[in-house]
């Protein structure tokens, strides 16, 4: 967890929980996101 100091710049933004950070490197979840993102990008590209 990031050390945050009250009233400083880094006090206010949301920071990810352990689960979120784990999901960003989880091979299964990221493989799924890879597929989803590619489909999304391709559908957007198809509009042109």
């Amino acid at each position: 967890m990031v050390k945050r100091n009250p009233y400083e710049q880094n006090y206010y933004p949301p920071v990810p929980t352990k689960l979120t950070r784990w999901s960003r490197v989880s091979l299964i979840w990221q493989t799924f996101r890879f597929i989803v993102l590619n489909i999304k990008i391709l559908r957007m590209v198809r509009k042109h």
Partner: protein
Amino acid sequence: MAKLVILGAGIAGHTAALHARRKLGSQHEVIVIAPNSKWNWIPSNIWVGVGWMKPEQVTFELAPVYKKQHITFKQARAVSIHPQGDKDHAQPFVSIEYTHPDKAGQSEQVEYDYLINATGPKLNFAATEGLGPDKNSLSVCTYGHAHQTAGVLREQIERMKKGEHLKFVVGTGHGMCTCQGAAFEYIFNLEFELQKAGVRDKATITWLSNEVELGDFGIGGMLLKRGGYITHSRIFAESLFTERGLHWITQAHVTRVEKDRTHYELLNGETGVIEHDFAMLLPPFSGVGLKAYDKNGGDITSELFAANGFMKVDADYSPKPYDQWKPSDWPKTYQNPQYKNIFAVGIAFAPPHGISKPMKNPNGTPINPTPPRTGMPSGVMGRIVAYSIVDMIKGKNKPLREASMANMGAACIASAGAGLFNGSGVSMTMYPIIPDFEKYPETGRDIKYTTGEIGLAGHWIKHALHFAFIYKAKALPLWMAVPE
């Protein structure tokens, strides 16, 4: 027989050349004029800039590709456009100066029937005193700059390994810069590399930019769906910065860069100085400085080009305040209104105005990002303009193809660290690029296609795009199946 001349072999010009060649019979000639012998996949310069890739991995020689494709390549710089010809030329032509070592300094007049200006940006380091790799700051805009930056980074890592604490500044070197996404990628990759080298605790890293808030990116930021909320990209970006212990200064116009410090003024008029041992600051962009002359040799540069040097196309250039900007101000066909056989694509076309709101500080200094024209729209423009010209050459009585940025999406995959299993990338998609508050009153963009997330998948996509686009640019079999 028709002659299509394309100025520039970057993302927009090279895409246009390949598509035009594919669609035109061999009786028609496609000529590319570009000063560099190499093609560069610019987005991967970020990885060159941290030493993860070498310049050879992001470039290749253009001449063999063009030879195979039957495209004439002149390694030269365009100097002026003569859309009415002159006393010696009935045809319009372009004056060029060769940069190829065998012909360096020689000039030539190249006649055209159709002209595509895809000359991209001039990296205007001179706009800020002391800015640029020849002076006091570094850059990743070209593979050469990025290679130099990686060398300096290596030296600084060695110093930190010996126990020194160093200050890094990354961002934009002027109040009117664009391309914040590239600097954003660089700061994340820098932080990642310092972690990998085990010296992160020895570095203070600060973002210094002309954005009104983090996450503006020159597109006025975006509202995206995240964790059950519609969130502004500012929150997303601040979260990413906080997580990595990065500091930020926004609303800044850099006034002077010295060897060890950068001076800036802010939107509220205050001034500041930040010390640095390493500063990677992007320059503002302008047009490459092409001139235009009429048939009598009269200077008509201001008819063809806007004051910033970018070429006028079918946009609405009438000056208007921010609250009157409309998506329909943006060009659709990229055709010059006066000379119907001239088009400008990619960074080379003059945008009608910004996307982010224009702002000035009490001293009258404008501090706001100018609009980005990223790789994906540049490629799409290159393709549709090539198709329009092919239709015109073939005598098809069809309306010109359209690809307005107000009707086009973009995917921006920003690397946040390179590594097959420990890398990460920020995947942002948006539709449309130009917000449309009439069509999407609440968010300005279609929330279904406007997203942002970070993870390993982003790195995989970025890496896959690196190979896919270089494959396509080399015109290897089925290259046209890779979308722009």
